[in-house]
Structures are given as structure tokens and as C-alpha cells.
């Protein structure tokens, strides 16, 4: 089993916007490696002539009318869960 490097785990954490403790980094090195090792069984499967399946019931390009519907949610209620609001808009921390 090839174990993921510390840098590889840090890279994944960065792509995923996750901050990890040193202990977590070591633990995830082990655990992610063993999961990736398990799924390697697929490498040996013969899939010649087969296409990937992304949608199992065969639906394609399902459209609906672009119209306003009363979906019970009022703007004020939608903003109720926001951590910070100003003038009915989401307020975020400074970017720079």
C-alpha cells in the first residue's frame, strides 16, 4: 500500500478549505490511504467497450418554466439563518 504523503494530505485539505491539526494530518494519511487502496481493485476490471454511466434512469435535459412560484420562503426568513446581515444582504469578512 502506498501511503499518501503529508504534503498530499495538506494539499487536499487546502482544496477542501479544511484546517487540520497535526494529529488529524497523520490520522487522515493512514485512513485516506487505506480507502484509496481498497478502491484500487477497480484498476484491474476489464471495461473495454463500456461507456461511463452518469445518470441511471436515462433522463436528459429536464426543463421547467422559468417563473416565480410562491415557495413559502420569504426573504426575511431566508436571511434568518445568516451569520451577519446588513441591509438585507449577507455580510462577509474582509477579503484582503
Amino acid at each position: 500500500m502506498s501511503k499518501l504523503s503529508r504534503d498530499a494530505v495538506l494539499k487536499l485539505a487546502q482544496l477542501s478549505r479544511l484546517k487540520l491539526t497535526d494529529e488529524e494530518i497523520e490520522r487522515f494519511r493512514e485512513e485516506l490511504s487505506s480507502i484509496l487502496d481498497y478502491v484500487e481493485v477497480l484498476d484491474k476490471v476489464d471495461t473495454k467497450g463500456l461507456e461511463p454511466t452518469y445518470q441511471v434512469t436515462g433522463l436528459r435535459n429536464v426543463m421547467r418554466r422559468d417563473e416565480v412560484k410562491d415557495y413559502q420562503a420569504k426573504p426575511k426568513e431566508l436571511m434568518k439563518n445568516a451569520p451577519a446581515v446588513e441591509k438585507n444582504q449577507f455580510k462577509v469578512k474582509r477579503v484582503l
Partner: protein
Amino acid sequence: MGKWPAIAGIAASIQAGELKAVDLVKQSLVSINESKDYDAIISTLEERAFKRAQDIDKKVAAGHKVGRLAGVPFIAKDNFLTFGGRTTAASNMLKDFEAPYQATVINRLEAEGAICVAKSNLDAWAHGSSTENSDFFVTKNPHDKTRVPGGSSGGSAAAVALDMAAFALGTDTGGSVRLPASFCGLLGLKPTYGLISRSGIVAMASSTDVVGTLTKTAADAALVLDIMAGRDDMDSTTIERDKQPYTDLENGLKGKKIGIVKEYFGEGLSADVRTVIDEALQKLKKTGAGVAEVSLPSVPLALAVYYIICPAEVSSNLARYDGQRYGLSAKQAKDLDDSYYLSREQGFGAEAKRRIMIGAHVLSSGYYDAYYKKAQTVRTKIINEFDEAFTKYDLLVGPTSPTVAFKIGEKTANPLQMYLADIMTVAANIAGVPAVSVPAGESRGLPVGLQLIAPQKADRQLLGAAKAFEELI
């Protein structure tokens, strides 16, 4: 057990004035309170439930017709958005989240008079097979408190087994309804992919997520399915429902050809489960149904396929939790980027982090073809084997789980061991076909489930067979 009569009968008694909806809500809340120490429930929706019950009782008193589920109390897994309380997905990220709208299925059930009384525990974000990944607490198995109820819909299963409500809703992405049904001695239905709307349900792996039911009987599952099934503009993956009611469950096993899936009887199957399932299959054979062994050689690969596809989709679906619009937001962040990192660090547990990072890995450039595309191609191979088997057989059969309910803590140290609990359920999700776990008996006091699998859109035939099987056992 068995405090709740058949669901169809409850609504009839309400309409006839023999039962009061308010009393049923009370009964449900009393049961929830009596079995508090099983930790099946995250929150109750008491105020809203009583208000809805009073409205139904008033309608009946005024001589109006009420719905097919009038006054029927039910419990929803806490990843269904509902009014009247919080929807947490058993996660720290959403522990204070109040849904501004309801899931389509909750609206459809309410339109027929059903009353959601409580929200049940799950593995956070539905990631798990035992409820041990809940960010809040572990649910205990009603048959043995030292064991897990299965997962991820473990709270819903324990709740129905403990008679807290007439039925419960779950979600099944890799086995999350059928496994807890098997561990708790219930009927767990995973319908055809797309048959039930997922609008308003916290998304996990969107190419396999389905809504499922936990009930005492196939007839109950059929009635609830009949009300939930069908197209929804708010979920573009939904398919047309059958015109014939799903409650028509006549002669479910008569003249049916049933294939015993050979791959489910290999080394990994415990002796406890094998004995019970073998006995059940003997009974099946005696009914005159055509029972024979069939091989689907790629089915054992379904779990590896799943553990690429699922984390890939999880990493995409959980990207929205950024601490800015809703959900946990880290107070001490110094800038926007820091806020993303800290909010996600604090809001996600270990299993969510594992899946997000695996997903990021298998989708990253240079790895995409080797992992994600390869997995989706093996998926085609598995689907082809199901298609081939269903040209010869109406139904496929096997155990739901390789073991009975395992001990709390038994598999938490090794995530891969936990994943293996889904080895027999996951192929149905990969292929999008309906499957049901039906109680087949017990081994040393612990329930064992038999799994029936049918072709896509044969949900009614599947439940018909489940009903006939119930009568056989």
C-alpha cells in the same frame, strides 16, 4: 411492539370520529419520552404537531373529508427540511439551522393529513452505517442497547421499532434505510432512483440518494410511497410514477422467478445470518416460486465504485457550507478565507472531512480518469449484469447485511470496516433499482433482514413480493 395499527386504518378511524388526531400526537410524544434513553430523536415538533392535529379534528367534527393519512404521526430523519423546529443533519454545521421551506415529500404527506412529530438521529450528513458518526449522540438498538441500530437512518429505525410513531422517513444512498431496517426488525424500502423528490433534503451523493421508508409492514410502506411518489418540478431527476396505485399488492410471489445472488453468500456472510436466510429461502422455494441461483460477478465491486462516486459527490455537495450564508460561522476568523477554513473545521466531523478529501482527490486533475471515470464505467458493467439477470428473473434475493447489529464502538476505529457494512445494499444504489429489506427472523434475539431487489420502476411488484414474504415468515 405493535402499538400502532395499520396506517390505512388510522386515517379511517379518524374520519369516522373513533380516534382523535390530538390523542395520536399525544401517544406518539409519550412513547418518545418513555424511550428517551435510546437517543433516537434529536428534536420534537410538538407545537406544530398539536396545531395540525387540532385542525384535522375540527375538520372531522365539521363533517369534512380528511386525507388518506389524516392524523397519522410520523418521524422524519433530521436531514428532511421541516417547519416547526430545526433541521440539523445531525451535524455541528447545521445545529441551529431553521429551514425556510419544507421538503416536497413533507408537504405531500401533510397534504394528506400526516403529522410530523419529531426529527430523528442519523450519522451526520447521512455518512455512516451505525449513527455513531452523529455529531450529537449515538442511537441504541431497541433489541440490545449495547448495539447500533444501523445507519445512517438509525434514529428513524429505532423510533419505529420503539413505536414512537406509525412510520418514519429515511434516506438511502448506499443502504441507509435497508441496513437499519435489517438491524431493527423492520421493513425498509429504497425505491427506484428518482421516484421520490429530494427537494428540501440535505444532499449527500446526488446520483444515488433516494427517500425511503421505515415501517412495520409492506402495506404501510406502499401507502406512504403512493403519496410521495412522482414528478416534482423542484427536483429535475424525478421520474413518472405508475398510474396503478402502489397499494395494489396482489399475489406478490405467485408465478415469480427469483434469483438467489450467489455473490452475497461468500466468505463474509456470518453464520447467524446465513442460517436465518437459508431457512427463509427454503420457505420461498416451497411456495412454488421458481427459485434458482444466479451470478452477478461484478456486484462485489459496487462498494469500491461507491467509495469513489459517493465522496466525489459529497465533496461537491458539502462545498456550499462555507460559513457565510447559513450554518455554523466561526466567530474568531480574521478574514474571509480564514472564515471558510475555521467554519468548515468546526462544522464538519471526521467522517465528513474524510469524504470531502477523498472526493477532492478522485476529482482532481490527473486522477479524474483513473478514479471517477473508471468507477462510472464499472458502474455500467454492474448495471448490465442486473439488466441481464432481470431478463431471467423478476426478483433477486439475498441477505441485507452480512451480520446482525454490531456492538457500539466495534467498527469506529477503522472507517473501511464501517464501509463494509453496506457491501450487500450498495449495488442497488449504483444501479438505481428498487430494493427492500424484510424481516426474515432472528438470531439470538437480533433481527435479520432479507433483501429483495427488483428492476427499475417495479416498486409495486417489489412491495407485493415483500408482503407475500411477510405472510410466509
